[in-house]
């Protein structure tokens, strides 16, 4: 199976050389195969969002590290054609309507006539009633669903989700779970960070544990008993963490 995401020796230090220097990532290496759903879990401040942003080319890694998405540099147009992304911080801008926002994304993703695709995505995420509303007028949970819808517009091959269930109510979490299962059947690769162990356990093939910027463990979730992930979480991330 071909590699969808390849990360080699990724490090990231913010404000290097100053007294406020923070080493957010240390020598992170891993690979995600096409069609896999991989979860990245770790406590707050572990480096999950930083790692995602480096994988997407939004932040530069320290020298010596390399990232490729679909065998391309993440900022190359070839890679961008195959990427979807849901950010943990929601896009804020007054005046932009939901449907226009999604149509823009579909157009940029290469769909010259995006109306049908946008309607389908809105229907899937139960957002049809929000189509004509401004993004700034929507609730946090609805904007989270818009960000999720944006990530899947244009049928990307690799989707990055940053805390996808953070602001969702339980029915929306169930819908997302079902949607991700469908995406897996279509061969879409999904890489997501989450605090929600149940979600990771329900949808992921594999899980990576990150603590203080270091990948400390990796487990396949195939055939594992219920509660396995919580036990692993305690073992790798809670018991190791200095008090």
């Amino acid at each position, binding site marked *: 199976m071909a590699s969808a995401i390849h990360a080699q020796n990724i490090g990231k230090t913010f404000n290097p050389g100053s007294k406020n220097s923070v080493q957010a990532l240390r020598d992170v290496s891993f690979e995600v195969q096409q069609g896999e759903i991989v979860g990245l879990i770790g406590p707050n401040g572990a480096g999950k969002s930083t790692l995602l942003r480096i994988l997407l080319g939004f932040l530069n890694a320290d020298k010596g590290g390399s990232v490729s998405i679909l065998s391309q540099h993440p900022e190359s147009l070839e890679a961008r054609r195959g990427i*979807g992304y849901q*950010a943990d911080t929601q896009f804020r801008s007054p005046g932009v309507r939901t449907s226009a926002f999604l149509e823009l994304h579909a157009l940029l993703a290469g769909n010259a006539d995006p109306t049908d695709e946008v309607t389908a995505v809105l229907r899937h995420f139960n957002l049809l009633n929000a189509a004509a509303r401004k993004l700034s007028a929507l609730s946090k949970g609805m904007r989270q669903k818009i960000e999720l819808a944006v990530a899947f517009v244009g049928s990307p091959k690799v989707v990055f989700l940053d805390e996808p269930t953070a602001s969702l109510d339980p029915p929306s979490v169930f819908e997302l779970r079902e949607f991700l299962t469908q995406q897996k059947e279509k061969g879409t690769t999904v890489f997501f960070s989450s605090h929600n162990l149940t979600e990771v356990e329900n949808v992921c093939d594999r899980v990576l544990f990150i603590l203080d910027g270091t990948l400390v463990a990796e487990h396949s979730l195939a055939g594992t008993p219920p509660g396995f992930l919580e036990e692993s979480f305690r073992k790798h991330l809670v018991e190791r963490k200095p008090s």
Partner: protein
Amino acid sequence: MEFRRQWTVAAFFIPIGLGALTTIMLVPMALIQPVYDFARNAAQINLSMVVPFAAALFCGGIISIDVKEGWLRTLLIRPITRQQYLLIKLAAAFSSVVITIVVAGVIPNIAVGAFFAKGVVRYEIGPILVAHTLFLLQALLIIGLLVFFSCWMPGIFNMVLLAAWYIAAASIGSYLQSRFWSSEWLMLLRDFLFPSGFTSALEMILGNAGTPTSELAWGFAALGFSFALAFWSVTRIEVDKSSE
């Protein structure tokens, strides 16, 4: 959509407010001047006020706001290059500045000339076209500089920086002109205080002081340099500077 994002409710009041201000400035001129020269008055109000104000207000945070709001991230995840993104931004910003020049510069000038001028009103199409072309070039130059600033600093800071630069260049320029007018190299230095090639060219044209070849060359060189800085900066910035 870029254009629409610029025109927030607050932004609608910018050209109207500036228009009111230019009208207040033009009315006394119309009452005093024996010849109300449309091109000359346009040069006075546009170059000193409308162009820098409009550019600063629409472009002060042209890139930094996009980074802060997550708009840059939401666009660059798609297959568009940073250069394409910048061209779209420049087109939207330039359109907004052009609209502001029309609403706050052209319309008040025509209206004041028609209703308040006591003397002869002069509308000469040649100087008017040249003047407005040079306003637009000066606007592009300032937009380019603001894009450069905006890649590294927040919007409000850029507006203050531009205003301070403008005022400092004008004050130092006047001082040098009055005290050291005979010093060739200090006069040359004065030209470098603020990229004012297009402004100088317009002054020469309206004053029938010959062909402003070197002034135009200086203006275009500064415009090219400001755009080069803008494009270089946009390729250098990190889309998401925040840590987790």
